[in-house]
């Protein structure tokens, strides 16, 4: 853990009496515990030291005493400055909830040329009328986008395959840019596409308007094609061709990739990482399957539990750390999000989709039919007939109706993991999240029964892995430091 600076009172003579500051602990191994405070700072202690600490028997001369004081686990009586500092850091953490998301997803069509087993929403249909977003719906959605108080606005086009309704993508981009001449926000666009249908014309439009591409790569050719069936069984080849074209026109950094972990991916973590490297990517997001929509319907979610996913994650991470040690800079994003909370003061300022341990209020989603959701997962849940997290519709509801709706406010309130049973006394809570949509979907309860929750098992497994690695391997820790500081 980086010690940013020591407060002035740390240099004052010590009276030998101290007060405990709020902290939580979890056992690690047989005779040690890890302590975390409100702001996610942490420290290891021997069991017997924990008992002395809580019984106020720890002497100022004790080596742990100074560390406990420096990292805000104890304070001198009446030392107000430490409280101010903790309040300030806590405030920074809370501000990401107050600072409303800047990510706006436009589902411009549900139509798709792929038929992926785990896809929740796509339709193999020619019926444009029924599954494409109209200009009128897009206009209404844009009205809401520019009501957002956030100075940064990111619009991401999703599907289905958004390139199947590219005229609407053009329309939204041009309209948003037009408005932005007055609004002057930091405006960004992303298209999430498999690249199978990309053309020179589309890429040229993306270049002129600075649009980034987020594409999908699941691993080596056989795995990718198995995960992503399409007529011709050539998804991987289309991806490779599309990637080259896109990079040629847009530049290397304008194209990123995400992967989905299917049951067939589980034994192949290293190969998947190698495939990313071969295609010139310098990062990966080892993303577990979400429990929504078809993933539940086709039982592919149940096909693996948190334990099997964690094995995959650890194998991937061991390999990634090894690569970094050999001089190949390569980042794993899921770990990075958690490490940022562990190793720095600043939480990622907005919780976007790269942050699955976020509160579930990760984005505002405008569906093709004008329905508005608080996250992509909520939209998928609605596709299964569960409208719990639907906030409203752009045609019938006002900004206030949508963003002050009970659906949103109750989720926001319930997403304070610090008040959930088990999370409230879990030392990993400052680094964890809530994911109310996940728990609603899997357990029928927004807070979730954490001891039985796959989400909780996954988070605990990842956090313990990262802690163990940092402790045992200083070189790996330095590598992590470069990830979180970039």
């Amino acid at each position: 853990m980086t010690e940013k600076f020591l407060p002035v009172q740390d240099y004052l003579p010590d009276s030998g009496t101290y007060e405990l500051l709020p902290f939580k602990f979890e056992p690690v191994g047989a005779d040690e515990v890890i302590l975390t405070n409100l702001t996610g700072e942490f420290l290891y202690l021997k069991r017997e030291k924990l008992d002395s600490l809580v019984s106020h028997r720890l002497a100022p001369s004790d080596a742990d005493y100074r560390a406990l004081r420096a990292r805000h686990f104890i304070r001198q009586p009446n030392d107000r400055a430490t409280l101010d500092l903790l309040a300030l850091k806590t405030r920074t953490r809370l501000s990401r909830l107050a600072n409303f998301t800047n990510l706006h997803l436009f589902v411009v069509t549900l139509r798709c040329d792929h038929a992926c087993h785990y896809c929740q929403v796509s339709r193999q249909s020619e019926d444009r009328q029924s599954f494409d977003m109209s200009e009128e719906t897009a206009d209404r959605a844009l009205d809401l986008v520019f009501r957002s108080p956030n100075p940064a606005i990111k619009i991401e086009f999703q599907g289905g395959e958004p390139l199947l309704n590219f005229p609407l993508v053009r329309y939204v981009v041009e309209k948003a840019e037009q408005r932005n001449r007055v609004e002057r926000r930091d405006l960004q666009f992303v298209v999430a596409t498999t690249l199978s249908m990309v053309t020179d014309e589309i890429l040229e439009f993306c270049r002129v308007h600075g649009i980034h591409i987020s594409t999908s790569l699941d691993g080596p050719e056989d795995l990718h094609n198995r995960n992503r069936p399409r007529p011709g069984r050539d998804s991987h080849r289309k991806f490779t061709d599309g990637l080259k074209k896109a990079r040629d026109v847009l530049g290397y950094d304008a194209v990123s990739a995400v992967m989905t972990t299917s049951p067939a991916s589980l034994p192949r973590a290293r190969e998947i990482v190698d495939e990313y490297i071969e295609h010139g990517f310098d990062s990966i997001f080892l993303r577990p399957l979400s429990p929504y929509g078809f993933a539940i319907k086709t039982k592919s979610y149940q096909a693996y539990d948190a334990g099997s996913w964690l094995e995959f994650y650890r194998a991937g991470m061991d390999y990634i750390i090894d690569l970094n040690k050999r001089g190949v800079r390569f980042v794993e994003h899921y770990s990075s999000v958690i490490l940022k909370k562990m190793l720095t003061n600043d939480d990622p300022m907005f919780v976007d989709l790269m942050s699955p341990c976020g509160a579930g209020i990760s984005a505002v989603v405008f569906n093709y039919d004008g329905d508005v959701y608080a996250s992509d997962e909520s939209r998928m849940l609605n596709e299964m007939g569960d409208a719990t997290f639907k906030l409203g519709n752009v045609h019938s509801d006002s900004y206030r109706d949508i963003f002050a709706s009970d659906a949103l406010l109750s989720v926001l309130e319930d997403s304070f993991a610090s008040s959930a049973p088990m999370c409230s006394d879990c030392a990993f809570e400052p680094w964890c999240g809530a994911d109310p949509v996940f728990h609603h979907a899997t357990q029928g309860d927004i807070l979730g029964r954490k001891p039985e929750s796959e989400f909780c098992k996954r988070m605990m497994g990842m956090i313990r892995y990262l802690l163990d690695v940092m402790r045992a391997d200083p070189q790996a820790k330095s590598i992590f430091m470069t990830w979180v500081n970039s």
Partner: protein
Amino acid sequence: MMKKIKMIRLELDRSIYSDEAVQKAAYRFIDRFAAIVSRADNSIVVEITFGTESSNQREHVVADFKKELLDQNLRLRIKTETEAVRNLILAYAFSKSGLQE
């Protein structure tokens, strides 16, 4: 062959263990056994019902549960001592962000 359902009964001294600590510990174990917590005179009684675990596994789980009971007791001591200061920190944090109004 069906394994027999196994029950274990723990009697805990109420001068040492609080109701809250026992309940929190039992909650953390709901994925491993079913527990009923009740009071009898000066003790808190925990009746644990296992599923199909072997006796070895059961012993392990009960040993872990006993450690958890002690940890929850300690957590409660920390919480009681730090609650006021925690509220103060949160009040500062919220007031500065204007969230309190």
